[in-house]
């Protein structure tokens, strides 16, 4: 048995490696009903978007209408538009995939997104809204000058492209998998549709379409989520999916103990440190604050209060969609572990991005299963539209205005059309070679935003000391550093700047944003701060003041303290985390390593189980042997005692017999002496005849007595010997029987050394 276990222990890793060399992958194939209904839903949806875009075109009379929808979008509609603008295809499909891959850690990411969304409304939106322009770049241009605006527009194009590639890739994937188009065709058709309706309708069309898209997304996610949860046994709580899977938590803990562990990620293989969580704030929340297409929605609100109320609605809808996505991601993880992995099938990145559709097709009727297809495309279109609008306004308005300051309003609108369309076409071209996971490039877009726009906007609004050289230097440092680290994955040339393992980019965000912040403060102070009174007056005005006081928002102490803090964060983020000191390995080697580790773990488990079983058996045998031995010893002692008692009894009887014989001999001898004396006296009394008769009688009596005593003594000795021998034989027989009894169980437990040893 132990050899068999040893063989299993030796060969399990090898078997697992052999298995890992030829993995079987799950391939999703949409059913006919899902594919057909998906096409119908998609065509209806695209038709609606284009119609809304065409209707909106009639309302566009000025650049203000084209870029800000005439600042007329109410809080509920704007909240819905904000949520659909923010929740992209990467969110709709990518979060499920990311949750499937990283589990608990995604909770931190999602809440950081939500937090960043609210932080814009607290720290930036009111002032930007009072400034009264269309984009963040325009604010930067008027606050820090034209050069800063050009740098900001370049940064915007870089991050918008990073963001858009992920979205375009998702659109292409959906068309490819659902409708069997090749990726390029799907990408071009999807990209052209969204480019068309955004270009035609401008911000009016975009706003109304984004509101419509938010409603489609919520229905397309919520309804399948309820049915999926009901089907996998989540019970009545399924009707509120964000918290609808509590009953399945124990089941998840059984199949994947690390799912709810905040200190592990990537299926329990990567430990989570405090620094990673800290990096989430700088990368995601601060990145959200800097995203120009998010900030742009605040320019469409009629008032600052409406802009804040839009955020409130947006927060609710964003949470509803995010946490419903969590429920589906949770169900997908259970499904893949219980159903697919049990069949020896693995999920690839492409299928992971489509898990919502996979789950819907597996567990819901066809007409519902096709809904997520429409929802995903709506999510993709809404975000692509928002970003194209930013590109169009950034180039069509901001750059064109810089080149041609006397441009008429009509020509600005015309340029908006042209650059929006060109931005869409350029993105389609870039998305032809996309990254693996949808969110990979999107998270880098957040990091670029956090390292460029966020510090410039916060300091530009809240610190009068920030000036043009500081802003330009900060934008360049943040943009160039995040760009280099994006391409080099944490390295500056041969020097490893950030060494933080598989999810290094989140820690990179701490470094790049802190570097930009530090640069803006230090360069601004070294160059004398802002001295243009017109700009300083504007800063008071965007905070709601009707008069000007140079002492407001001018604390250099505050700026220096934050700069010192930023410097400390830069150093801290660059210190290698011992947890992640190991260099990232090649994917194949990492997969083999993971398989070997899993096999070794399995072998250890089997061996541990076998050892435990062997220990238990040995312990039971030892206990049994000890019990038997104790019984045998007791029996031996009893038998020995009994034999000893018997021998003593026999010996006592023999002694008694000997004593009786001796007594009898003495009695006979006394009688003989008495007779001899009588005969002597008689002979002395009667002459020699009597004396002769007496001698004869004496001799005869003496001989007779002697014979009798010897006979009696010999008989007594014989009896005593016989009794002693019989007792000894009995004792030996009993002892032998006891030994035999003790040997028998001990022989059945050969591993029990004490039992055999004592024998």
């Amino acid at each position, binding site marked *: 048995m132990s050899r068999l276990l040893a063989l299993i222990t030796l060969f399990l890793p090898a078997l697992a490696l052999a298995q890992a060399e030829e993995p079987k992958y799950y391939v999703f194939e949409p059913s006919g009903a899902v594919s057909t209904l998906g096409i119908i839903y998609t065509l209806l949806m695209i038709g609606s978007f284009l119609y809304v875009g065409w209707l909106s075109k009639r309302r566009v009379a000025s650049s203000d209408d084209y870029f800000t929808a005439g600042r007329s979008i109410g809080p509920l509609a704007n909240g819905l538009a904000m949520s659909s603008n923010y929740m992209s295809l990467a969110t709709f499909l990518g979060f499920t995939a990311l949750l499937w891959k990283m589990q608990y850690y995604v909770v*931190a990411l999602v*809440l950081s997104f939500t937090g960043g969304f609210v932080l814009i409304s607290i720290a930036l939106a009111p002032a930007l809204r009072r400034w009264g322009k269309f984009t963040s770049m325009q604010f930067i241009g008027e606050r820090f000058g034209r050069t800063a605006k050009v740098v900001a527009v370049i940064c915007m194009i870089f991050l918008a492209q990073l963001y858009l590639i992920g979205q375009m890739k998702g659109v292409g994937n959906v068309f490819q998998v659902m409708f069997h188009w090749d990726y390029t065709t799907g990408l071009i058709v999807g990209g052209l549709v969204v480019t068309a309706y955004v270009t035609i309708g401008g911000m009016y069309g975009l706003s109304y379409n984004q509101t419509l898209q938010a409603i489609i997304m919520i229905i397309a996610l919520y309804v399948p989520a309820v049915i999926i949860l009901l089907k996998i046994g989540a019970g009545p709580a399924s009707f509120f999916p964000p*918290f609808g899977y509590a009953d399945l*938590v124990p089941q998840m803990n059984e199949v994947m103990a690390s799912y709810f562990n905040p200190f592990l990620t990537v299926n329990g293989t990567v430990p989570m440190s405090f620094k990673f969580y800290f990096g989430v*704030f700088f990368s995601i929340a601060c990145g959200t604050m800097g995203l120009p297409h998010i900030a742009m929605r605040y320019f469409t609100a009629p008032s600052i209060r409406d802009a804040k109320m839009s955020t409130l609605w947006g*927060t609710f809808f964003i949470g509803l969609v995010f946490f419903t996505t969590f429920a589906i991601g949770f169900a997908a993880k259970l499904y893949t572990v219980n159903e697919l992995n049990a069949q020896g099938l693995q999920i690839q990145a492409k299928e992971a991005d489509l898990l919502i559709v996979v789950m819907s097709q597996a567990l819901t009727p066809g007409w519902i299963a096709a809904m997520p297809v429409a929802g995903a495309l709506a999510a993709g279109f809404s975000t692509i539209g928002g970003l194209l609008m930013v590109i169009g306004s950034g180039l069509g308005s901001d750059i064109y205005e810089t080149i041609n300051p006397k441009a008429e309003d009509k020509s600005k609108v015309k340029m908006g059309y042209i650059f929006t369309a060109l931005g869409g076409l350029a993105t389609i071209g870039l998305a032809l070679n996309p990254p693996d996971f949808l969110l990979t490039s999107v998270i880098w877009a957040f990091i670029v935003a956090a390292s460029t726009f966020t510090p410039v906007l916060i300091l530009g609004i809240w610190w009068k000391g920030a000036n043009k050289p500081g802003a330009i230097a900060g934008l360049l440092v943040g943009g160039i550093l995040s760009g280099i680290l994006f391409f080099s994955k944490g390295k500056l040339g041969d020097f490893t700047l950030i060494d933080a393992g598989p999810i290094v980019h989140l820690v990179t965000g701490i470094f790049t944003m802190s570097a930009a912040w530090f640069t803006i403060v230090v360069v601004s102070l070294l160059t004398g701060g802002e001295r243009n009174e017109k700009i300083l007056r504007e800063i008071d005005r965007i905070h709601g003041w009707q008069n000007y006081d140079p002492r407001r928002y001018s604390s250099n102490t505050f700026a220096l303290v934050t700069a010192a803090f930023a410097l400390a964060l830069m150093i801290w983020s660059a210190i290698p985390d011992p947890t992640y000191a190991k260099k990232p390995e090649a994917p194949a080697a990492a997969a083999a390593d993971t398989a070997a580790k899993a096999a070794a773990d399995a072998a250890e488990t089997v061996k541990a189980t076998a050892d435990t079983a062997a220990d238990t058996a040995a312990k039971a045998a030892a206990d049994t042997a000890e019990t038997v031995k104790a019984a045998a010893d007791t029996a031996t002692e009893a038998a020995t005692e009994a034999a000893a008692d018997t021998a003593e009894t026999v010996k006592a009887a023999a002694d008694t017999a000997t004593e009786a014989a001796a007594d009898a001999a003495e009695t006979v001898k006394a009688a003989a002496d008495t007779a001899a004396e009588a005969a002597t006296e008689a002979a002395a009394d009667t002459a020699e005849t009597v004396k002769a008769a007496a001698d004869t009688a004496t001799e005869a009596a003496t001989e007779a007595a002697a014979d009798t005593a010897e006979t009696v003594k010999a008989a007594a000795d014989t009896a005593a010997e016989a009794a002693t021998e019989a007792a000894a034989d009995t004792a030996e027989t009993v002892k032998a029987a006891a030994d035999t009894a003790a040997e028998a169980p001990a022989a059945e437990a050969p591993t029990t050394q004490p039992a055999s040893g004592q024998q």
Partner: protein
Amino acid sequence: MNNAERMHVAYKSQCRTTLIAFVVVTLMTHIFPMYFLFPELNKVTIFGFPADYWLTIVIGWLVLIPVFWIYIQISEKVDQEINDSSTGAADNAPGGNP
């Protein structure tokens, strides 16, 4: 309280409200220090979920909404006071950052 003092108070209120709201929202949506301070929360359940998981979502989403609504009300009052106190006031008036 004269107009200059009103502006001074309004300025302080604006900075304080913004800073506190920023920190509170950041903490509510980045509750991860709780994992490191109270790791045993992972072993306790609330409504069937591990307590840290449940608290993270509820605080970062459902509790955030009323907290943000309260901030909107306060910030609107502060904005109104800024507007009222500074309307018609002369430039470089006392107040502002001491």
